[in-house]
């Protein structure tokens, strides 16, 4: 088993996301995270980033199956194409007071999380980073009054000059 970060460049037409998701559910593949947004100025192409896991054979299948979809331009397994960057953003609400509240704020600073909302009993932190960094921060917040989380899922791109197109 391994984890794979797969970037898919697709024609931005209606139903394209349903095709991708339907492929994963229909064939029993995992989706650990999925993001999608238009990436061209004219909104014609979207980039879907999927973090999935499976045996090497399954991941190869996933790539081949994605490549078979008519509106798919390109499928790239970033985890195999050399070094890449993967980032996620999370909005994290922590509710509490007293020592726990102070501790949450100190840890947030250590993690370079930004406070984007505060009340006398709560903070909303904004944190960007690799998924495991977000996970580590959330683990620390749990005993300190972690109340709600919203995560974007992973956006990823290769290092250096090479591009998906």
């Amino acid at each position: 088993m391994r984890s794979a970060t797969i970037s898919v460049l697709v024609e931005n037409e209606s139903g394209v996301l349903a095709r991708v998701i339907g492929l994963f559910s229909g064939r029993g593949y995992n989706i650990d995270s999925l993001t999608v947004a238009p990436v061209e100025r004219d909104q014609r192409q979207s980039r879907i980033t999927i973090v999935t896991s499976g045996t090497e054979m399954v991941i190869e299948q996933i790539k081949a199956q994605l490549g078979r979809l008519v509106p798919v331009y390109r499928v790239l397994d970033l985890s195999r194409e050399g070094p890449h960057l993967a980032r996620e953003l999370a909005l994290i609400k922590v509710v509490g007071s007293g020592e726990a509240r102070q501790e949450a704020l100190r840890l947030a600073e250590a993690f370079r999380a930004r406070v984007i909302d505060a009340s006398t009993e709560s903070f909303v932190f904004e944190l960007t980073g690799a998924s495991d960094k977000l996970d580590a921060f959330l683990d620390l917040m749990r005993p300190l009054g972690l109340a709600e989380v919203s995560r974007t899922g992973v956006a990823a791109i290769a290092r250096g000059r090479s591009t998906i197109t």
Partner: protein
Amino acid sequence: MGLFVPALNGMAEMDGSMMASETMASGAETLLRALVAQGVDVIFGYPGGAVLPIYDALFQQDAIRHVLVRHEQAAVHAAEGYARSTGRVGVVLVTSGPGATNAVTGLVDALMDSIPLVCLTGQVPTHLIGNDAFQEADTTGITRQATKHNYLVKQSADLARVVHEAFHVARTGRPGPVLVDLPKDILINPAPYAEPSAAPHASYRPRTTPDPARIAQAVALLKRSERPIVYTGGGVINAGPEAAKLLLEFVRLTGFPCTSTLMGLGAYPASDPQFLGMLGMHGTYEANMVMHDTDVMLNMGARFDDRVTGRLNAFSPGSKKIHADIDPSSINKSVTVDCAIIGDAAETLRALITAWKQDTTPQNRDALAKWWQQIDFWRSKNSLRYTQSRDAGSVIKPQYAIEQLYKATRGRETFVTTEVGQHQMWAAQYFRFDKPNHWLTSGGLGTMGYGLPAAMGVQVAHPDALVIDIAGEASILMNIQEMGTLAQYRLPVKIFILNNQYMGMVRQWQELLHGNRYSESYSAALPDFVKLAESFHAVGLRAETVDDLDRVIAEMLAVDRPVIADICVDQKENVYPMIPSGAAHNEMLLGPEHKAESGGYTGNSVTDEGMVLI
């Protein structure tokens, strides 16, 4: 993508017959014009509210013929029959809602067997979509996993481009069904015409030319092989008759044995001595033993289907595997291969032949001769052997019925379709196909009810040919309403029912796996098929004993009308050989005829893991 020709340019070239001269054509008219440009001469369909504008346009032209079926599922199977027997794209036209949902089984059938179709569905007007309007169904949503691709046309300007693109996607790469959902307002409103674009598709570009390095690698493996096998599938059929010719050339050139999947039958001539018969669950002993013991396997356009491989971890354990397929997702899906070649089967075979001739490595002819000796030994078991008593009044063996039918049809251009069950396997085993595109069966989905409408589509495409649906008494009832279509269009399809009064394939599994508990598999309250035929203006015939068989076959073939021949066969006969689910190729069961021999019939030998497989 803005590639359509502006409306007025298009108008200038229009032939006045199809549309008014000053005003832009309606969507329905533009649709038909695009179909004509795609070479469509016949549509299988069924009308309804949402597609009335198309029916109105059809009424006012005569370039395209419409065949009215009795159920939308049958329209799709008929288009499959048309497509499979001609190599062209089959076209279906159905209405919204129930018309579209009735077509779904046929679409999945075509998807599984890679049959090129374009299915046009009506839809409620764009402004009503999502409102649960009358006869609205989310057709593109429902058929997303049932098609190779589908479209909802939301703007008149897209109509012609989408229709052309649908045909392109259906017929190129690994072929398959493509659906175009057409809201009623799009059909009524003016829509500009555009010629098919010559520019390549932006994102869809299937690879057809094989990588020369892989071809060289494959030839190197094959040249050094001692126990080779060529295993072919439906991909060779899809690649067209040229691929079948090249296959014959390649197999002759190499001297290799050749076997085929159910879907590939006919690509290699069955009567050629290098052909080992079908492989897989009900394949011949020699084909499966060869697959098990081979050292280099060349898979041409087959997909290592579970009916073929048996237990995966015991499948051909010692072989190097070469897999040539047009669909990259077929590679390493279930069986890991040593050499993958992505490409069209004809192009791949042509490249293999050239490379084989150029490669100066001598072939190991001695090893090959020994391999053939071994094969001849396996062959001598005669695994398809059965015994037909000729005593007066004897029960007809289903295998014998097929053999006699086969003999009686020699010398005629014959197409065979089947339903699904034991009769399908017996047809595959005992009818010999020497040409591609003459054998049509539902392989991947196994759809009972496929055979009659598919035969209809074949007969429409080949009015003078002999078209036979080899059927079971249960399956035939699934689309029996199409007898009406046969009558209306005077399609002289012959329905040859192997009537064992059981869902025989179900009964066989219940006998072998479920302690002879024949739960719900008896065909009770069957109609009188002779009278049923007559009520549909067809000829009804019946053979009750072996004495009747040849006469009934002769009569059936002699009449130029649709016929149902009700052939009463042995109710207890099972299909052998059989690789039980969960077993390896070299653990196959031979029939009762082989009881005395070692490695023969062993009755209930299905493993527990096998029980959960189907």
